[in-house]
């Protein structure tokens, strides 16, 4: 048995081994490769002989390999596979194979050989491949989204951060940063709010969510950027341990938002100015007429006193005119203010038929245009509770709109109907004002009660919005039927008196 063992030479063992084996010189060139090694790497024995080991290693690991080779040659000791030496080799077809390797130095005289044993670790390579590609994916996604990652260690008071964040903070080389230094780059005005957000997230009773927006000032170029940060505090044994999260540069977004805000403010201002102008113009018009009359009457009286030339009757007429007009101005102001301030509305029991006739005679007399009225006024309609002046204003407004709409109609008919309807178990009076003009479409019908909406070239678009407000103040509703084949049809309701 012993002699048989003695007869086994190195070569026999070498060739018979189930594991792949290579024998190399200390220069890294292959002297021998056993059949398993040849098969595994796909080379013939001749091809492998004299080949530099380096050529069998994936190019990106060659530098690393040379470093370890130097280390090994300085101190050539056995390294078993369990130490975890691994290496990615290339087979003859260029496919990468992850290998577990062991190294055994063999010294004969001055010559140092190295015996390399290796086995395939392909399954592990797949996992690592997957890991690497998922990391790669994460890295690319992060880059695409412009995300930076931070990890704030509360105990050590330092922040681990990635390249993206280092770039924003203008500190390219430091892999960690002290919390104080980190905060120093944040705009002083934003520090407090950000700290409050962190404090809130660190509260063990909270869900640990952190959300903040703040500016940072790059210490190198002084450029200011808006940062949006989101993260979560992780607790250990009930104590906040670390805050991990992402940051994003949202400067562009903020700028767009700011521009939009400026634009919105401008639009709002224009609207406010217009409302103010309309109100002022309404007041001016209401006051200017009586003022004009008072002024003229007064001058008449004054002139008469100076020249003693006017009959007592005329003087009386002028002075009475003054009084009446001053009172009219006061009344207009009160009504206008009451409408603007929505003060207490004075209502009275009113006969709706009378109010309608009153409004019709105003429209007849102002020569607004021709029309043929058809009245379907319910007889013995109970008195409604309303402010008569206001309801008359609404009616005049509806009539004028209707007459204007029928300007190009050969036979313009204004139909006015009154009736009783039950709304929510309560009887109310309904007035319907219908014209036979062109009517309007759904789009117009939807907007017709909006302030400043008008279809007339010189209108200011306040008539219907004021009318609706007036009817609502009187406890009713005003709406329009836009099934417009037969012209526009406005309805409003009013409550009956007690």
């Amino acid at each position: 048995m012993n002699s048989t063992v003695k007869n086994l030479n190195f070569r026999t063992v070498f060739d018979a081994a189930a594991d792949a084996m290579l024998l190399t010189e200390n220069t890294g060139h292959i002297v021998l490769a056993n059949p398993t090694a040849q098969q595994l790497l796909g080379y013939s024995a001749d091809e492998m002989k004299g080949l530099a080991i380096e050529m069998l290693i994936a190019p990106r690991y060659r530098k690393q390999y040379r470093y370890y080779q130097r280390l090994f040659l300085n101190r050539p000791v056995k390294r078993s596979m369990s130490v975890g030496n691994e290496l990615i080799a290339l087979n003859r077809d260029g496919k990468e194979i992850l290998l577990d390797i062991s190294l055994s130095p063999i010294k004969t005289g001055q010559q140092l050989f190295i015996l390399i044993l290796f086995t395939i670790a392909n399954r592990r390579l797949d996992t690592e491949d997957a890991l690497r590609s998922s990391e790669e994916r994460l890295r690319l996604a992060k880059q695409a989204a412009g995300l930076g990652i931070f990890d704030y260690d509360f105990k050590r008071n330092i922040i681990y951060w990635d390249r993206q964040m280092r770039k924003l903070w203008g500190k390219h080389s430091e892999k960690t940063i002290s919390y104080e230094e980190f905060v120093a780059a944040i705009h002083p005005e934003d520090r407090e709010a950000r700290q409050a957000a962190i404090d809130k997230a660190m509260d063990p009773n909270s869900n640990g969510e952190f959300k903040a927006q703040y500016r940072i000032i790059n210490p190198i170029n002084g450029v200011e950027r808006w940062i949006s940060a989101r993260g979560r505090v992780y607790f250990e044994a009930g104590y906040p341990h670390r805050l991990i999260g992402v940051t994003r540069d949202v400067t562009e977004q903020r700028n767009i938002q700011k521009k939009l805000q400026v634009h919105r403010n401008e639009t709002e201002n224009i609207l406010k100015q217009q409302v103010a102008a309309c109100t002022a113009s309404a007041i001016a018009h209401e006051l200017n007429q009586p003022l004009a009359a008072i002024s003229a009457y007064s001058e008449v009286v004054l002139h008469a006193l100076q020249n003693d030339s006017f009959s007592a009757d005329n003087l009386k007429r002028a002075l009475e005119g003054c009084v009446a007009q001053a009172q009219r101005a006061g009344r207009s102001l009160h009504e206008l203010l009451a409408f603007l301030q929505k003060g207490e509305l004075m209502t009275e029991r009113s006969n709706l038929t009378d109010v309608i006739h009153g409004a019709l005679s105003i429209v007849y007399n102002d020569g607004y245009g021709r029309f043929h009225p058809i009245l379907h006024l319910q007889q013995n309609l109970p008195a409604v509770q309303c402010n008569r002046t206001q309801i008359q204003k609404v009616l005049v407004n509806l009539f004028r709109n209707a007459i204007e709409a029928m300007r190009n109609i050969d036979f313009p008919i204004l139909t006015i109907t009154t009736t009783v309807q039950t709304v929510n178990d309560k009887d109310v009076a309904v007035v319907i004002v219908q014209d036979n003009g062109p009517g309007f479409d759904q789009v117009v019908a939807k907007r017709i009660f909006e302030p400043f909406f008008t279809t007339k070239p010189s209108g200011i678009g306040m008539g219907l919005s004021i009318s609706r407000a007036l009817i609502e103040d009187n406890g009713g509703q005003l709406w329009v039927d836009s099934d417009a084949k037969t012209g526009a049809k406005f309805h409003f309701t009013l409550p009956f008196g007690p």
Partner: protein
Amino acid sequence: MQEPTVFIVDDDAAVRDSLTLMIEQAGMHVQSFENAKTFLNAYQPNFFGCVIIDVKMPGMDGLQLQEELAWRKILLPVIFLTGHGDIPMSVRAIKGGAIDFLTKPVIREKLLICVRAAFTEAKKRLSDATQNREITTCLTKLTRREREVMLLAVQGHSNKEIGSYLGISYRTVEIHKSKIMQKTGANNLLDLARIARESELSE
């Protein structure tokens, strides 16, 4: 000549009444109307004086009434009343031939000055119109041949030239010309040229 009258068109009863008193106190005749339509319906060709129109009225407004007056060849000078004069509207009104603008409340002095100026303008317009009518009348008295001779004469052609254009003798042209001067009452050729031009304008 008939006494001039101030016609007021304003939808506000108090404004109408107070201005009426003011103008009557100054010794002038006034008639007032509550809208454009009533004024146009009441209008008579012998209306003489001026018209004060409120710019802002329901129905036909002041500027529309001004256009209507021009279209109907009503020569009454127009004074506008306005609550708060806005410039584009004033420009339109003045271009339309308005005499002046009065802002409410109206000052007595300014109103009276304005009305008197309008009356002067009204008289001028009336006499211009009368004169035009007279010229037109006397030109209708001319025979066809006499009109032909007149047109050539006022263009500066000599009697000889006119004669050869019309194929009549130099003498006949002279006879026609003296008849023309006689019928139109023109003193000389220059006067005749003026009459011819004015009649063209009024046609």
